[in-house]
């Protein structure tokens, strides 16, 4: 370390660092982050809350203060309840599928042999497609009359042309999920790969000597050792899933009926018709749910950052 110290000492002579940067208190280091988050995060949040306490008077064309009227409306709104259920179904199914697929594909691609690096690189490609564009991609592929995906679903008898995937209540959410799964499974693969690569080798070698088969090793070793990684992955992904908007907006507008209308999609629709206070209420309600659930999750699974 002495050479480093020499360099450091030499630097010290050349410039004198501002005093606060040489102190041991973390505050100066965190200051830019904190101010950024307060100005562009907390303030807008409070503003949104303030907005949610208003209602547009369409005749006088002003926003009137109405206390918690919007919140009352939201709790009595059947579509909010429906949207909540849709969002939960969406989030949970996407999480389970993406987690399972992600882990499986990560284990499949976790090899140092030639070519696997390229495969891993290719696997990340879906991540760079803007979600709005990915939604359009799948809309084109799932179109009931012209879509390539629909074509094969019909050809293999999985669906009938009479019941196109996005037009049928029972399958529409699956249709939207397909886009999400395609785009975000690679993200899970990346996280899981990171976890797998960081695992110690010794326990596996010892187990192999004891004659354990691969399933046993997966059950007894890989899974428990990865549990923390899985928890973090579920947290990060779950939060994003709960706010899902782009795919629904582009692919179904929440239809058929309101079968695929998630919380954010509903808020987005209200937003686009110009009722900003109610849209803010719905968005804050979503935030509240995420906040509470995430907090519980962190407590239960003892996630440490």
């Amino acid at each position, binding site marked *: 370390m002495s050479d480093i110290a020499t360099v450091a000492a030499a630097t010290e002579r050349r410039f004198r660092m501002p005093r606060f940067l040489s102190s041991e208190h973390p505050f100066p280091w965190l200051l830019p982050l904190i101010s950024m988050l307060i100005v562009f995060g907390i303030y807008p949040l409070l503003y949104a809350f303030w907005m949610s306490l208003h209602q*547009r008077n369409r*005749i006088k064309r002003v926003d009137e203060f109405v206390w918690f009227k919007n919140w009352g409306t939201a709790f009595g709104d059947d579509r909010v309840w429906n949207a909540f259920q849709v969002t939960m179904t969406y989030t949970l199914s996407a999480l389970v599928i993406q987690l399972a697929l992600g882990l499986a594909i990560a284990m499949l691609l976790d090899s140092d042999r030639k070519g696997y690096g390229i495969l891993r690189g290719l696997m990340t490609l879906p991540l760079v497609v803007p979600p709005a564009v990915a939604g359009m991609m799948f809309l084109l592929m799932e179109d*009931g009359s012209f879509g390539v995906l629909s074509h094969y679903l019909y050809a293999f008898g999985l669906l009938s042309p009479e019941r196109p995937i996005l037009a049928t*209540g029972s399958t529409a959410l699956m249709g939207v999920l397909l886009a999400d799964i395609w785009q975000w499974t690679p993200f899970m693969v990346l996280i899981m790969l990171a976890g797998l690569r960081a695992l110690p080798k010794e326990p596996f070698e010892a187990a192999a000597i004891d004659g354990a088969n691969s399933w046993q090793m997966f059950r007894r070793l890989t899974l428990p050792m990865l549990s923390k990684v899985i928890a973090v992955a579920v947290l990060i992904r779950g939060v994003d899933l709960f706010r899902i908007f782009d795919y629904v907006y582009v692919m179904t*507008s929440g239809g058929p*009926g309101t079968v695929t209308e998630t919380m954010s999609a509903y808020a987005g629709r209200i937003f686009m018709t110009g009722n900003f206070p109610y849209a803010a209420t719905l968005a804050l309600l979503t935030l509240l749910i995420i906040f509470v659930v995430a907090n519980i999750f962190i407590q239960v699974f003892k996630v440490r950052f």
Partner: protein
Amino acid sequence: MSFKDHDKRTFVVDACNDFTARRITKRDFLRKMALAGVGFSTFSAGMLGGRRPFNGLTGLGTPEARAAGHTDVEKWLKEVGGKYSGTKIRYSTEATPPSIVANQLAQEEFTKLTGIEVEVEIVPLEQVLAKATQDVQGQLGTYDLYYLDQSWMATFAPDTIDPTEYYASDSELAMPDFDWDDFSKPLVDGIAMYEGKMVGIPFDIPIAILMYRKDLFDKYSIEVPATMEAYMEAARIITEGEKDNNVYGNAFQARSGHYSLECDWTIFLWGHGGSIFNADNLFSGNDDFGIQGLEYYQKMLADYTPPAATTWTWDGQFQAMQQGQSAMCISWGEFFPGMDANESKVQGLMEHARPPVETNGRRPVEQAGFGEIPAVGHQGGSVIGLSAYSKNKEAAWIFMQWACSKDVMARVSTLGGGASPMRLSSFEDPRVKEKAVVGPGTTRHFDTINWTINNAMGSEPDMPLWAELANNDIPVTLGKLLTGQDYDGSAKAAMDELAQVVDQKVADAGLR
């Protein structure tokens, strides 16, 4: 509304001979198309930047079509517009043919003459609404001009400057030979007027007409349907006859929860003598005629329309027609040129006709509420309005007059690929008439459009709540019904519930 005296002044463009294409060889046909396209572009040679010479083709242009006042206009642009040189004006618009073409012409002609820069922001319709609402509520002054759909007129009426008043009050800025009477009167009343104020200048007029496959009609000896019953019967014959070819009789724009579904619904609601609101401003989609219209729609959707139609907006409906999957539709006339385009699978096979006459007769305007005009020819027009919050009112006003001037509007109709005209003079413009042949950007459907505007144009209610009802409550309820999520297929149950919701909202907003 006096259609009669209006009719007298209206020059109806001669119907073209649609079989021209079949009498000449394909090669000659395509050449002719190319020439027709270029013929108009001889004017455009300059406006397209003049990069490509059109030697030998100029003769095909019709230089006399450059309106007599054209040089006056140029002079006016230079002298009056030039004062505001360097100003930048902005507007936000949906990607409609007129707005896209106006955008291009603005850069290449208007800015050159005046030095006023024009920045057009193009976004999908529902985002235009959100952006305009933001601008108005925050008084941002982001936009100098608004693109306003007819269904938002009441919402934005106080936010724009009445163009006729501005024109009269400031003669210095008034464009020579603007000719307000040249605008189709029913259009102005239907799209642009709200409680006596002209919110903006009509700029785009998609209107519902009947479009059908002539070849299939010939094959099954079907007459052009003049009634709703005949329309369904034609749909049935074609759907049953063409089952093996995967061709359906009808196409809808029935995406759940989308404004397009609301448009579709009104066509058949009005088409069965119903109305959205009654004279007491109560929702009346649940009366007998309303239910009849909706049940008709349900049957049509279930039996004679591709099942994917409940995921389609106007885009999917257009696609189905252009790909030959559906043989008929009652929908936006602006689709028609696309079906005649080269990439279309039904080029030259499509014909247009007046929309079928209303079953039970048309409900009189006095019996409908909130300024609604019931009639089968649903219009989805829009205006450009001058923002009351604009910081560059003068420059924006000069641009607005130019964009809505006779010359520009006529060219928008041809360059825009056969976009329906707003001005009577556009129907007569030689450049427009020259395009009335089978081929890309055809204008051969303009006579039908013109007839529909003057005789069967339906307009949605004008009320500040309408944008929300039309984009949310109505299409969502319809979506739930049509896709079987709720109401067990009972149109009555769906409409009764909708009536409750709508009446409640109207009352809450203090509009009744």
